[in-house]
């Protein structure tokens, strides 16, 4: 079956803070004001460290939403990592970029573009998203692809042979460290991983890295399944909140023996501006 592309409209988000208090409480009980949690964020790029900012859930670029809740869920569900976006209104009209990940709850699509275009964006601007990827397949029985533009299948560090998909990742995260996002649909929600710079093998985690989540099955809602594995893209940075952390947008899921990983602690992030612009990995 061939996959279908659809044009969606995302609206550049304005950050929101609930109620009359600006404070959230971090995992050690300290209050903080959440900066960088949604909207247009400047100075954060793919390849930057996931633990590199004093911010909350900071994403490399802008977050898109939609004022109608059902349309917002559909925007989030159908937008896929690698989809091209084009600004339709405002001072950045005509600028292009790419979807680099998604976030959950009410739904957000994270798009990356050049800093000068981001600087010209204004919350409320319209951005068209070429939604394409749900329903794509690698042709490997047992291993499912989701949230991924099919054009990236040939550009990411993955190899299909002998009925397996071998992926190069920054590191692996055991399921006990997976937090917010469990129990939610993987097409519309990311998985926050409760890792820190002291988590073995993950001190160098960067935005755009691929990571493996062991014993996690995201096919029909995200949850624990022994012997399963999910691979995703790190789409936003760390959060001070307990139960939260860098956010992973799942792109591959299958039995671990059909989805072996090679850990590369030092290489370039799998998802970069170069890869998104179409250069082969």
């Amino acid at each position, binding site marked *: 079956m061939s996959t279908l592309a659809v044009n969606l409209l995302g609206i550049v988000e304005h950050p929101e803070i609930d109620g009359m208090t600006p404070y959230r409480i971090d995992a050690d009980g300290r209050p903080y004001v959440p900066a960088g949690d949604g909207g247009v964020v400047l100075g954060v790029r793919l390849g930057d460290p996931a633990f590199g900012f004093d911010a909350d859930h900071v994403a490399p670029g802008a977050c898109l939403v939609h004022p109608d809740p059902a349309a917002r869920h559909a925007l989030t569900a159908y937008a896929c990592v690698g989809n091209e976006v084009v600004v339709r209104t405002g001072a950045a009209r005509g600028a292009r970029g790419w979807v680099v990940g998604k976030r959950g709850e009410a739904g957000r699509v994270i798009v990356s573009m050049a800093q000068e275009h981001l600087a010209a964006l204004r919350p409320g601007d319209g951005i068209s998203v070429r939604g394409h990827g749900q329903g794509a397949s690698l042709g490997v029985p047992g291993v499912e692809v989701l949230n991924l533009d099919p054009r990236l299948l040939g550009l990411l560090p993955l190899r299909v042979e002998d009925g397996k998909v071998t992926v190069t990742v920054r590191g692996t995260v055991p399921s006990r460290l997976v937090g*917010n996002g469990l129990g939610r649909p993987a097409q519309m929600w990311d998985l926050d991983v409760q890792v820190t710079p002291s988590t073995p093998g993950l001190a160098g985690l960067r935005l755009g890295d691929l990571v493996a989540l062991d014993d996690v099955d995201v096919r029909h809602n995200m949850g624990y399944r022994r012997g399963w594995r999910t691979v995703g893209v790190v789409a936003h940075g760390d959060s001070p909140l*307990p139960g939260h952390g860098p956010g992973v947008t799942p792109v591959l899921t299958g039995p671990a023996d059909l989805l072996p990983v090679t850990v590369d602690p030092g290489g370039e992030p799998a998802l970069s501006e170069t890869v998104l612009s179409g250069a082969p990995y």
Partner: protein
Amino acid sequence: MRAETNAARLVTQILTGEVWPPLADRNGPRLDADGRAFLLPGMGGVTLGVHCGDPATGYAADHLEPGLSIRHRDPGANMALQFLTCVGNTVRTASGAEGFVIGQHAYVLADLPEEALAEVTVGDPVTVVARGQGLRLTDHPALAVKNCSPELVERMPGGTRADGRLEVHVAATVPAEAVGAGAGMASEFANTDLMGAYAGLSPDLSLGLEGLRIGDFVAIEDADHRFGRGYRSGYVTIGVISTGHCMLHGHGPGPSSLITGPAEAFHIVRSPDANLEVIR
């Protein structure tokens, strides 16, 4: 020795809510962890036939909420109801029937005798006698108490030991791998869904938690719920199972958070009788 508390300094607030209807959408069924469609009751409304001490799983149900599921119509008042209500608080229906709060699940959940439950329906007003937030165990400064009525702490087996630790009896210990939906949320809201209790589904989903009962006290390993629900190696959270059977992946029987702190501040005793029934 009974653990000392600041209960004498706590105040009581009278709150109201109503029995909230079960909710569905036009698409009907949902999918279980293995991709099979289901359409089953359990969440919202008045759920009959399941009480404290009964098995949590083994029902044709999803997000089973025993007894009454209670909300307030006004959003701000509802958050006060959800945050201020504590496990063990008394609830009263319009006809004067009394029960007690067993936990939260984005609803306040209350167990009443079966014959009283049978007379309640959706929309009926419920009064909640809220007392407990702010409770402290004065001899255990490392431990934080959440969602606990003073009466519950008084009646829970265990207490302060000669070595200074808090003895708590639990029916089960829960590995961190089981923590599902609810991670990252406020400890005073809803509960922690436990995965690995999918009775009747694939064995590769099991974490050995199919034997839980409604009202069981459990100890969640490596869980720090002092400032919200998160993973912290070496911490323990004591909870009470307030919801039951789930089909939806990443969900399951859920403990409401009660006491949380470093593992060395606790002396955990495994006891099959460790259940909220002590509050009756």
